[in-house]
């Protein structure tokens, strides 16, 4: 029974350590990803995704990248990579740090080869000299009938593929951290407002932090030539009533506080107004195109800004007033800066100035550092694999009569021969020159 169980374990191990499975999985990932670009995806285009046929939606085609199947595929790929890395570790270690000089000439089997005749000792010194000068690490064995050596250069290159493989697993772990922890939210706030962070709308996750965000100003700045410069939000972080941080952010220049990052993502015009109710004066801010509304306390009246002309000198606002659930406005009109109008005899409204609304993407993603680590490892691995290929030179000296003899030298050319041949020829030339 035990035998058979081990057989199964071994079988699974063998399947998962095979590159064939790896290639199949990679192919499937590519295929499924490609299919996902043909169907509108719910996270990018929810409207269109809903129009796709019911079956496809149920099968997950409109959110293909978060289906169990896709995740399973990624999981299998990771297992594959881990198993394969464990399997290959020893071999790579031996090929890098535990190189054994060849025993006999027949071990120098290689496409790139050369034979040098000479005296044992001078040749040995010359080989040592030249290889060391060229950055090789050398191991020499002396026997009765001569000596042999093996030397390696750029030996970290051997680790490239292993590092690339592990890095992919690190990337996937980072992505999992991002989807299972943290949150993603959005806030649209006017200059002058203070927003508790846990009150913003989230599309994913939960907010555990309890600081507040104060928006000092929101600006849509232009360059002298009329082109848009950027959107700027001057914001502060308020913790227990005291401001702990203040910074101006803009698109591509976010702010991070306690793991929460604020990204400037959109901007809308707005206007600040004063509402004069019978017994109180209220400052309010309305967002362009009806982005928000104001319901005067004690009334059924809803006020929105239908359009705002955000000229700093002469702001103008087109407004609409609705009553209750009515779909037709009961009052519409235009209001200029400094002007005061009457709204349905219930309150007075004065347009004070422009006010910007800033749209901030708010995210906490604890996986992002892990993802960057994975990226760095991936680049390191690829760099070592392709730009830092190791080179191994080995040779056997066999003495004939007296101290004279012949050195057979070769190189393990690995995957490409081109540049290696040149480098080898140069080494041989240098050794001979001595």
């Amino acid at each position, binding site marked *: 029974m035990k035998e058979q169980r081990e057989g199964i374990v071994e079988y699974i191990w063998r399947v998962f350590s095979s590159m064939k499975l790896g290639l199949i999985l*990679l*192919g499937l990932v590519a295929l499924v*990803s490609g299919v996902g670009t043909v169907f509108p995806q719910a996270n*990018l*285009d929810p409207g269109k995704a809903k129009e796709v046929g019911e079956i496809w939606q149920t099968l997950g085609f409109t959110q293909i990248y978060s289906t169990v199947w896709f995740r399973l595929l990624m999981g299998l790929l990771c297992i594959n990579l881990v198993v394969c890395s464990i399997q290959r570790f020893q071999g790579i270690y031996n090929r890098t740090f535990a190189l054994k000089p060849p025993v006999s000439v027949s071990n120098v089997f290689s496409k790139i080869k050369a034979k040098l005749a000479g005296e044992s000792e001078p040749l040995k010194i010359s080989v040592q000299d030249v290889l060391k000068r060229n950055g090789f690490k050398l191991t020499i064995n002396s026997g009765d009938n001569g000596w042999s050596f093996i030397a390696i250069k750029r030996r970290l290159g051997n680790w490239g593929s292993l590092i690339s493989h592990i890095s992919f697993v690190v990337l996937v772990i980072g992505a999992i951290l991002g989807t299972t922890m943290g949150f*993603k939210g959005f806030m649209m706030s006017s200059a002058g407002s203070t927003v508790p962070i846990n009150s913003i709308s989230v599309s994913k996750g939960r907010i555990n932090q309890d600081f507040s965000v104060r928006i000092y100003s929101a600006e849509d700045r232009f360059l002298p030539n009329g082109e848009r410069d950027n959107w700027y939000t001057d914001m502060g972080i308020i913790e227990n009533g005291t401001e702990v941080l203040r910074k101006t952010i803009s698109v591509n220049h976010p702010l991070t506080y306690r793991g929460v990052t604020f990204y400037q993502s959109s901007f809308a015009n707005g206007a600040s107004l004063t509402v004069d109710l019978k017994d109180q004066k209220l400052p309010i801010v309305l967002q362009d195109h009806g982005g928000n509304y104001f319901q005067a306390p004690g009334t059924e009246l809803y006020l929105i800004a239908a359009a705002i002309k955000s000229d700093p000198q002469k702001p103008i606002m087109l407004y609409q007033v609705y009553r209750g659930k009515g779909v037709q406005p009961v009052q519409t009109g235009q209001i200029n800066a400094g002007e005061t109008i009457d709204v349905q005899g219930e309150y007075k409204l004065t347009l004070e100035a422009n006010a910007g609304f800033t749209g901030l*993407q708010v995210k906490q993603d604890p996986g992002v550092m892990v993802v960057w680590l994975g990226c760095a490892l991936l680049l390191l691995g*690829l760099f070592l694999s392709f730009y830092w290929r190791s080179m191994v030179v080995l040779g056997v000296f066999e003495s004939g009569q007296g101290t004279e003899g012949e050195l057979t030298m070769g190189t393990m050319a690995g995957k490409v021969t*081109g540049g290696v041949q040149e480098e080898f020829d140069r080494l041989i030339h240098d050794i001979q020159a001595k």
Partner: protein
Amino acid sequence: MDQGLQNLETSSFYVMLMAYTLCMFFHWAWIGTKKELMGRFATYLSIVGLVANTAAIILRMIIAGRPPLSNSYEFLLAFIWGIIFVYLFIEYRYKLRSLGAFVMPIAFLILMFIIMSMGPEERIAQAIPPALKSKWLTFHVVTAMFSYGAFATSFGLGIMYLLKIGEEGKGKKSNPHGIISRFPALDIIDELSYKVIGFAFPLLTLCIITGAIWANYAWGTYWSWDPKETWSLITWIIYAAYLHARLMYGWKGKRAAWMTIFGFAAVLFTFFGVNYFLPGLHSYAISQPNILV
């Protein structure tokens, strides 16, 4: 002053167009006639073209006051630059002029695409949305330029390989006077192609990563599976498969050549196909235009 620069930029574009186009014909003439003079002209013209191409890019940079990497026209100019640069390097390093006959047409077709599909208003420097103002974007496109350029060259090598093996496969020992006889030996083409891809693959990876870093600064999402991103990943997987199949199963020669063609088709699809064929580019595609290459 600005108008002067503008005119100079336009002239550079047309000089480049002429040079690359003539260069293509001279390459063909050279492998057809084997007249050394033709080959010389072809090489000189590609250099003239590259200089004009560089000038067009730099002038655009001066006019726009930013890296010229923000709309399809500018990216295509950079793409062509990458193709010709990598090609010229290989021509020089490996004395492989015959490759030009297969690489120049790629540049030519892209130029034709620019001329036919982009009106003058699409070619001038445009204002860019705030999201595109990022130094990561510059890294992103520079790496794309070199890796795509290299993939284009490996595509050319793949075609050469298939033509040559097609000829030799027919049994008649390659006609010593035919066009194919200009090509280097099969395994030299094959290995060169592998080297070029080995150079380009890390760069493609860097391109995708810098794109992710940029997206994370701009939107707080390093990867959102939008079609551009996804297709760049698919391209990446195809080349990764090429490398692995070669290493493990010794996929060389014919199969490898087909893979280079396949891979470059994916490169082109990532750039053109996604923009023109796929539905549902998502909401921030407006502020994130064709540049996620």
